[in-house]
């Protein structure tokens, strides 16, 4: 078995080296920092133990950013997957031009985030000159056209709508990829046996799609928890606290914006909490979603 051991080691070596040096080591240093009150320069790090964590617990902005993040995760996830499934089913229901539709639906994923945020916040949601307002008014839906999409009460939901719109395309492609792998013979056999659309969906599609669905849900969960770029760029000058997610708040506390706040220890404590949340979510998901791996 020596050759095998050598193989294992050689194959694992480059990945492990890079990972340890450029990922684990910095992450551990960051963890270490979370027990300090530190502004980034080695001479004034003050050991404070779990104080940062205790303060997080009472920090309103952190609670709000965490709640925003979890809302994106759960509500956003449900909507994204619901829509993705719906669209996938529609696309697979025998219509023509399926590949074209799919390409258009996926399009937002290849456009740079900054272009998208500018588009949504400046072009679509503008209360006076925006597409939605003018479009809705044009269609005669007066009361809807007066909704202030970017008011403090609505801005988070509006942002979430944009995020959902972008991501649906991604998961449609993922689901379609999974469905395409299912041999059509199974469906044909089921039809012969007298199954209807709904039964086929629940008895064939979903089970065989399970590992793709799992991958999708795990991917979504991790990205939702870490989401940074869209909220950060959504409001042009500085991210608005109404749209803070944990990653954005972490950045603001660690690096400040125009007002200098350099509490790196505090920021990294947030990062640690985030990582723990991710681990928790992934463990729960893997448990819940565990099925036998199907080879076919």
């Amino acid at each position, binding site marked *: 078995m020596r050759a095998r051991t050598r193989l294992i080691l050689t194959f694992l070596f480059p990945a492990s080296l890079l990972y340890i040096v450029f990922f684990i080591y910095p992450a551990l240093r960051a963890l270490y920092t979370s027990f300090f009150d530190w502004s980034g320069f080695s001479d004034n790090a003050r050991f404070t133990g779990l104080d940062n964590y205790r303060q997080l617990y009472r920090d309103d902005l952190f609670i709000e950013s965490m709640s925003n993040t979890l809302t994106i995760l759960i509500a956003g996830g449900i909507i994204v997957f619901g829509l993705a499934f719906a669209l996938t089913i529609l696309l697979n229901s025998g219509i023509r031009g399926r590949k074209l539709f799919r390409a258009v639906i996926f399009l937002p994923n290849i456009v740079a985030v900054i272009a998208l945020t500018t588009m949504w916040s400046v072009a679509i949601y503008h209360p006076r000159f925006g597409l939605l307002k003018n479009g809705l008014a044009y269609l005669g839906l007066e009361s809807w056209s007066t909704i202030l999409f970017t008011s403090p009460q609505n801005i988070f939901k509006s942002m979430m709508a944009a995020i959902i719109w972008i991501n649906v395309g991604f998961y449609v492609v993922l689901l379609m990829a999974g469905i395409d792998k299912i041999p059509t013979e199974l469906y044909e056999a089921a039809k012969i046996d007298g199954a209807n659309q709904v039964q086929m969906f629940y008895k064939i599609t979903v089970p065989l799609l399970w590992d793709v669905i799992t991958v999708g849900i795990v991917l979504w969960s991790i990205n939702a928890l870490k989401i940074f770029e869209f909220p950060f760029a959504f409001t042009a000058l500085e991210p608005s606290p109404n749209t803070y997610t944990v990653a954005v708040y972490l950045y603001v506390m660690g690096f*400040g*914006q125009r007002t200098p*706040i350099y509490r790196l220890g505090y920021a990294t404590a947030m990062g640690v909490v985030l990582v723990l949340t991710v681990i928790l979510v992934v463990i729960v998901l893997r448990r819940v979603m565990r099925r036998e791996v199907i080879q076919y």
Partner: protein
Amino acid sequence: MKNVKLLTLLLVAALALPLGVGVSSGQDEVKLVYWSMWNETEPQAQVIQSWIEAFEAANPNIDIQATWNGRQNQTLVRTALSAGETIDFVDQDADPISGGLVAEGLALPLNEYLDETALDEDMPVRDVFTPGTLDLFAVDGQVYLWPYVYNTSQFWYNKDAFAEVGIEQPPATWEEFLDACQKLLDAGYDPIAAESDIQFYQIDYLTYQAVRYGGVGFLLQTLEDPTGEMWRDPIYLQAAQNMRELWDKGYIPPESAGYLWPAGQQTLGVGLAAMELVGSWLPIELANVVEGSFEWGGFNFPAMPDGAGDQNDLMVYLLSFMVVKDTEHPREIADFLKFITTQENMQQMADEALVGVTRVDVEWAPEIADGAAAAANATAVFGMADGGVALYPELVNNILYVNWSKLFLGEITPEEFVETMVDDQAEYWANAG
């Protein structure tokens, strides 16, 4: 063998010595690393670039390498410095950099260079600065920032709109101000433009009222109160109520709650709104939107009834250079700073970038002429949040700004604002200790 080794060593040492000495001789190449808050294409950056080129031409052994980072500059500089990178000098808004790099002890003291004679006047350099600008962010008498751009915070307004509704003189008291707003509203204008998401614009309403009612320094004192009880001073409740009054009467149109920057100021640019309380950079930002005949005017925040402050007390945004303490070339940088402070160079900045500058005897662009007047007549100058941003950035950013913004947008009442400030501030100081 040993002799050969010894000889080689001596030879090497002999060769190295002149090299070592040579490097520090004055005529050799000096490279200065400058990280800037501007983006390459902004007019300010282009002026600075031309300054650099002129300076390098006059001093061929000096090479200034500029990196145009944009407003994130201080963040990037900090990351780089804390990781050991060499940066010689930087620039940024004075408030954040004062509370950031300067407060951390990373700035080079500049008094000795300011005492040197100016390049184009027969007096110390410090005397060519507009009064108040050097001392505003000085720490115990020591100056760490070299300001060059001077932005004022005033009401910037559409002169034609005002004339049209019969307002001949800009309002000087709160009553006149409300009156002017009403006239504008009746004529169909949105009297005041506002952004829903720029908290450091919204705060000006509070800062100015605090200064008008209580004088310069009052707000700062309030922020320093560890119990937070100073927020119960009646002027704050009054200030909050005044703010809501502007909204309730429709002087700030309700759809402003949905204006993400720059939507609010756009309404001023296209002629729908009449004025905005903001910095004197507004004319540049709206240059592409306004009709050619647009005439800009600016007036100071009005005086408040029975206020202790002067209506000429002015809030300023000073954009400044800062020299990194451990730089190896303070002399060359100081020469550059003195170079840019000549009347000629400062005038170039004022003309080409349409901004105010910190040097006396420079004429500002006609759009911001009222800003120049305000600067010249200022009885006192103060910074963002009356110095709060520079001294207590976290308190101001996470507590004051957030709560005032909620009040501004009508999410909490004036009474709730006061209560929340008392509680949150007390908690902040309890933790900070």
